[in-house]
């Protein structure tokens, strides 16, 4: 009886030591989960989730404070990927996903106030005080954060139309179940 207890205790100590050593030896810097979640998020930095950017939202999800369905730009697919990563149920999106758009500044109206430049999370607006501003369309994430601060309402969102270079092959129509 005593031997058995001693053996069990011995095994426990050895295994505990191995685990403790492994934890130190293979320690991962930072929180890989946050990075993984952040990698799925679309990086629009729009704040529609209620957090000031994609990274904070990722951190909140990792901590279990935020739901996975708060990111409209990521769409249903983003939710699916997050659900897969975290091993939770897929939920319908909290809001309607919008078509992808970029901001456009009406340069005839712009007064050069720089408020939009300060609002842009990815520095995609070019301009200086009392100089006309313009959007660097290729860098714009379509977050709409510049629209509200503009005092003269000269920024509008232009929906990206499908054109030749951005055209995709469609999913073939599978006609098996249709009537003859």
């Amino acid at each position: 009886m005593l031997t058995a207890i001693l053996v069990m205790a011995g095994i426990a100590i050895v295994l505990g030591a191995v685990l403790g050593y492994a934890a130190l030896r293979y320690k991962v810097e930072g929180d890989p989960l946050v990075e993984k979640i952040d990698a799925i998020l679309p990086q629009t930095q729009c704040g529609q989730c209620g957090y000031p950017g994609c990274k904070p939202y990722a951190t909140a999800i990792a901590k279990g404070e935020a739901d996975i369905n708060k990111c409209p730009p990521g769409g249903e697919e983003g939710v699916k990927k997050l659900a897969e990563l975290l091993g939770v149920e897929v939920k319908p999106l909290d809001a309607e996903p919008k078509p992808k758009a970029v901001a456009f500044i009406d340069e005839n109206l712009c007064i050069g106030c720089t408020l939009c430049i300060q609002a842009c999370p990815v520095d995609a607006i070019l301009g200086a005080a009392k100089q006309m501003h313009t959007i660097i369309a290729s860098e714009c994430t379509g977050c709409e954060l510049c629209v509200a601060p503009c005092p003269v309402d000269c920024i509008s969102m232009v929906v990206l139309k499908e054109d030749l270079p951005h055209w995709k092959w469609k999913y073939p129509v599978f006609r098996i179940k249709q009537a003859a």
Partner: protein
Amino acid sequence: MRTLHRFPGGIHPEEHKAESSARPIHAPFIPNRLFIPMRQHIGQPAKPIVKVGDKVLKGQMIGQADGYVSTAVHASSSGVVTGIGLHAVAHPSGLPDLCITIDTDGHDTWTELQPLDWQSLDPAAVRGYVRDLGIAGLGGAVFPSSIKLDPKNQPIHTLILNGGECEPWITCDDRLMRERAEEVLQGARIMQHLLGAQTVIAGIEDNKPEAIAAMQAAAEKLGLQIEIAAMPTRYPGGGGKQITQTLTGLETPSGKLSTDIGVQVFNVGTAYALARAILHGEPLISRIVTVTGHVLGPQNYETLIGTPMGELVMHAGEREGTTGLIMGGPMMGFDVQPEAPVVKATNCVLVKSAELFPPKPRELPCIRCTECARVCPAQLQPQELYWFARAKNFGKAQEYNLFDCIECGCCSYVCPSHIPLVDYYRFAKSEIWAREKEKHAADIARERHEFRLFRLEREKKEKAERLAAKAQTKKAEAPTLTTDEQDAKKKLIAEALARAQAKKAGVAPKNTDNLTPEQCAEIAEIEARRARIREMAKKTIEPEKHL
């Protein structure tokens, strides 16, 4: 005799070559209106360098190569530029693209042509000319030839002239070799010179005995060391990787081009176009197009680039019961609108009818018979790829080498369940590309956002330091801003706001009003440049095809 090797897979459907190969190449005709797309080649579209209203001469450059992977575009006949804008083009999407419209004057006046002394010029200079003369691969992939003629780090030991023309119905290369073999071989000689290749082989499928004979005769006449090899007729024997294996036994590694193993493949039509360009100074403004299928007179037409395909079909004799046009052959071609113009890639306009091309029978579930795997020249497992693509399991599809698929269509052809397999692969490929682009954009956005946060933090710190320093030095001095001054500032802002709101309402002058004519012109120019840049920003990457 060269020992030929056998590439895996392949099919041999009905050839249907006799319909159009019997008659000689028809001389070009000048349509009233030409629509010349700026995007006729792989890579960056050409940049328009003419304005609406400009008079242009035949062979005059109207679009200039933009970037490394690009080539120039020329007016195919003389006339007036009447439009620069979106027009229907030959693309599977059916979407329009940027075209220059030329109303022809019927005189067909050539611009001044400058033949090139290619033997004494530096190869790099010759390549520059090739680019400015708009030469791109005429086998269908339209890859800019100037790039392919640059051996760079990889020495090219073998130059292959591709006269395979393996797709049914198409006979433009056949007729070209029969009638203009000498110029084809002269082009090959220039290519050999630029590439420094030791061996030149022309591979021609053995269903074109007249072309083989003509090429052999021309090679003898010119005294060239060019081997003319008759290859067994089997689709897709004219594919770049397939012809390389047939003639050299070399297997092109996955994800690479034959160039990477020292073999460069050019279509015979490209060699001909190169010869015309270098020896006569003629830019690529016309090509031979097979018009066949449901037409009265199936034949090969020398056709000006920009001729609407519908007009070309009318010339060949339109028939009752036409159900549509295909650009290219029945294996790899796609449906086009009749308004779409002939481009450098147009080797064939195939006119459909219900008898020749009945609607596809109903699709049934896959029964895993693996006929597709038997005929796949890339030795893929098409049935597995199909399941993955259908389930949108793109990771798995890539794992099973989706990107080695050359989209030849053999699998779809032999499928007893009539599944449009290639459509699934194309869908999966373009979905994967789109995702990669999105991921790339997200990575850039993340980087920019993080840099911005870092910058704000730094600015805050710097400001605090500055203020602290200032406070130290100016401790004794009076406060910097009086209330009056602050009020004045507020007033200024309020006034600006009012002005802006007035502007918006449209009553007050805009900041673009009361400009000098020079300023207006400058603005117009900037606007035009912006429009162009916006066009150009839309790059496209397409898989290279050699068929």
